[in-house]
């Protein structure tokens, strides 16, 4: 017997309303299931590749950037695996810094590593809104440059490596290397803040070490020529302050020091390689490695503002070839303290 549908009102078995509800209910269940599966999807186990933009003003900082990459490699960041570097030619001039940084920012980096004070100031302006972490390596005096308010707690989105004052120790090392030195020529550019800083550091010490400082202000390149051609009498050594104009003439200082068999102290290690007898200061490469340690912490999620600004370690660099050529014997004890030694003339 076939099923006979009764003609009087019954529960609407075959009507449309209830199956529709039933389908809605099934649809709801399917949605919930899909949602659950979505929530359960495997999170990506590989951490994302971080993009680090490197910005410099002058070619000097190529060594800083190399040290930075080396430092990150030592900390386990494989290039192309955990990090990619977005490098560019040095901006060359302060004017070109902002366009270069903008170009880097357009590629959405995770971290900005900038070298030199002007580059850091430009990066600070351009990241004021995005709060992109910025590590500077180095900035000579980040407080004076208005980059951070406090070395211990920078706040904001910047931290990095500053240069530690080391000119007093450099003068002391001059005394250690050549105890017979009495009169020291200090050429400087009036109005250069860094040079003033050097002078302020070494003046109090000179007397205690029994040294006479012969300070010579140089207004222009012509004065350098005149000074080099006619050094003051009885000069025993030349001590170059942190003074970009004076330092720029390093070849001439090396030439005159060698010619007069005078110990030449320069602020940067690069100048030791260029023929200066010694320096006590920072090493770009080491600053890069120091910055890499900060970058590691930032990449691990610590806000840059929580990371104190670090001071670059000053190391003693000695050019033994220069020492030989000026007839100076460097003692073993001093040599043992040197972190960088040039043994052969280039």
């Amino acid at each position, binding site marked *: 017997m076939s099923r006979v549908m009764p003609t009087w009102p019954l529960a609407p078995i075959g009507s449309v309303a*209830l199956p529709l509800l039933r389908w809605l209910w*099934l649809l709801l269940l399917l949605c919930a299931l899909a949602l659950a599966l979505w929530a359960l999807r495997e999170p990506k186990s590989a951490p994302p590749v971080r993009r680090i933009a490197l910005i410099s003003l002058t070619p000097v900082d190529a060594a800083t950037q190399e040290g930075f990459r080396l430092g990150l490699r030592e900390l386990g960041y494989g290039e192309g695996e955990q990090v990619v570097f977005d490098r560019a030619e040095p901006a060359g001039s302060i004017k070109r810094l902002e366009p270069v940084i903008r170009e880097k920012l357009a590629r959405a980096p995770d971290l900005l590593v900038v070298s030199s004070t002007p580059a850091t100031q430009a990066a600070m302006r351009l990241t004021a809104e995005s709060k992109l972490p910025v590590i500077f390596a180095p900035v000579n005096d980040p407080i004076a440059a208005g980059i951070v308010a406090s*070395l211990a707690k920078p706040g904001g989105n910047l931290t990095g490596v500053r240069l530690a004052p080391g000119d007093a120790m450099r003068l002391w090392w001059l005394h250690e290397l050549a105890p017979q030195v009495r009169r020291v020529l200090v050429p400087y550019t009036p109005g250069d803040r860094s040079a003033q800083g050097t002078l302020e550091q070494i003046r109090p010490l000179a007397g205690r070490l029994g040294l006479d400082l012969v300070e010579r202000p140089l207004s222009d390149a012509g004065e350098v020529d005149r000074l080099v051609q006619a050094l003051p009498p009885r000069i025993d050594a030349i001590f170059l302050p942190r003074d970009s104009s004076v330092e720029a003439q390093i070849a001439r200082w090396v030439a005159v020091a060698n010619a007069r068999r005078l110990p030449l102290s320069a602020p940067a290690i690069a100048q030791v390689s260029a023929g200066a007898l010694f320096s006590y200061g920072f090493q770009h490469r080491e600053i890069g490695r120091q910055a890499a340690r900060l970058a*590691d912490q930032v990449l691990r999620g610590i806000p840059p503002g929580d990371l104190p600004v670090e001071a670059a370690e000053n190391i003693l660099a000695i050019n033994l070839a220069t020492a030989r050529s000026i007839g100076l014997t460097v003692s073993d004890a001093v040599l043992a*303290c040197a972190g960088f030694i040039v043994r052969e003339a280039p």
Partner: protein
Amino acid sequence: MSPDDLARCRFTGLRLRLAAAFFSLGVLPLLFLGGMLLWLTYQIQLDRVHDHQRALLARMRIETAHFLDGFVERLRRFNLLRDFSALAVNEQRQALAILLAERREFREIALIGVDGREHVRVAAAQPLFDEDLRQRGDDAGFRWAMERLHPWVSHTYHDEATGEPLMMLMIPLVDRRSGRSSSVLAAEVRLRTLWYLMARADLLTGESVYLLDEEGRVIAHANPSHVLRGDRLDAPTSGRTVGLDGDDVFRQTSTLAFAQRQLTLVTEQQTGIALEPARRALVWMLAALLVALAMVTLLFWVAARRIVQPVEDIAAVARAVRAGHLDARAPGEGRRDEIGDLAASFNAMTAELAALLAEKQCFSDELAARIEERTAQLKQANDELESFAYSVSHDLRAPLRAIDGFSRIVVEDYGDTLDAEGQRLLGIVRNNALRMQQLIEDILHFSRLGRTAMQDASIDMKAMVAEVWAEVLASVQAGAARRKIEFILGDLPPAHGDRAMVRQIWANLLGNAAKFTQKREQARIEVRGRREGALNVYEVEDNGAGFDPDYADKLFGIFQRLHSAQEYEGTGIGLALVERIVTRHGGRVWARGEIDRGACFGFTLPADTESQPGGDGA
């Protein structure tokens, strides 16, 4: 809840119970298992976190201890080849300077002689001269190192410029020949490198490790701000707690002895991240629950379709059958299961019921037709009988009048010729003729009563009774000697009916009452009434001659008398008339009484629906 409501509500009764069974079988075990699984996952995860933290702490203890002991070892090495204190000051200075250049963690090193005076002091950041040498004989650390020949470590303190934590180490240099301390090396150590150690620890996400000094200050943390801020943790407890960053964490601690100081290594793991697998298990369980729910729903849907729906259909058909739709048939008869059996049996039963009902209907129709036919016949016979009685009575009146008339003429005209006997006999003839005439009148009256149409009207019974009683009393007093009758008239509910006929009822009953109390010196008649539902009840009670209750059923028969006509006059038609009138009004009559103890006659009439029940008599 009516069956229709039941049909409308789809989740009651069978369906509900079936759903409950399905869901409790399908979902509850899963819930139970899921709960167990969750608990298990939580416990395992907890154990894993604890194991990991223990391992991490052990590793970090070794690394930290190695790092710290490295300073002590480094300083002790000065005494390895020869007595360091015996060297020239210049050599000592050079050796210390080399150490400073080599190990950047040392900020400053001094050699203090047995006299407590610094023999030499070198610093990493500034040149020092002889005039910078200090007297340190009163330093607690110096005395400790000199006396106990053990390294001494200061509390941590902070560099004012950078906020970095520093520590002073006092290492006694022991003269091997005398076994006494020949001098003490005082070194100021930067603990900053420990930060990197903490940062480089192989940490999981959400994990941190840090070092506390004896006073609970954080001296090493991957995030230096904790150190520089001077964050501290007094008496850190292990277990679940609030972490240094304010998060909910699992924490474990381990102490580390460095010289005489007790440092504390702490590791924390954010619980949210640590319990992630448990959370995922929960999500999995919920997903499984949803799947199970979907499957159970599907199964329930199928089961409801296969079992409950047919039963509900059959129930609906049963309701329809009950409502009279005997042609309804339950679906599913073709199924080879109990439902099929049920449907088949039900349908067979319904068919049988329909057949039976049809048969019964047929039978009752036939019966009704037959009753109607008989009733009509009976009515015809009755009508004929009545008309016969009427015509007989009517036709009998003329000869009777003739008998009476002629008897009177004989008495009047030939009275002188008749002797006394003849006159007496003629008198009997006349009396009987009169009596017969009376009987015929009564029959005619009675017969007419059955045929006259009733005029329905509202009747004020009390007024009517009073009026009728007045007439009855007048006729009674007019006859024999004056009687003394106590008449009690209660409240009577108004009735409706044919005014003349009802009046007849009262006349007959009151007349009877007056008649049968005539031998009573203190006659008493009471009329009362009351309302009983849709009926009014009226009664007339007297204390007269009464009657034998055994013959009560004969009282209302026509010409039935329980007393002789000599004793109480009358033809015996009165109560028959009463019964007929009451019956025509749809009421009934009754009588009760005992011989010589009075009688009570009662009747009912339909209540006057317009009247208020408040008019009920007592």
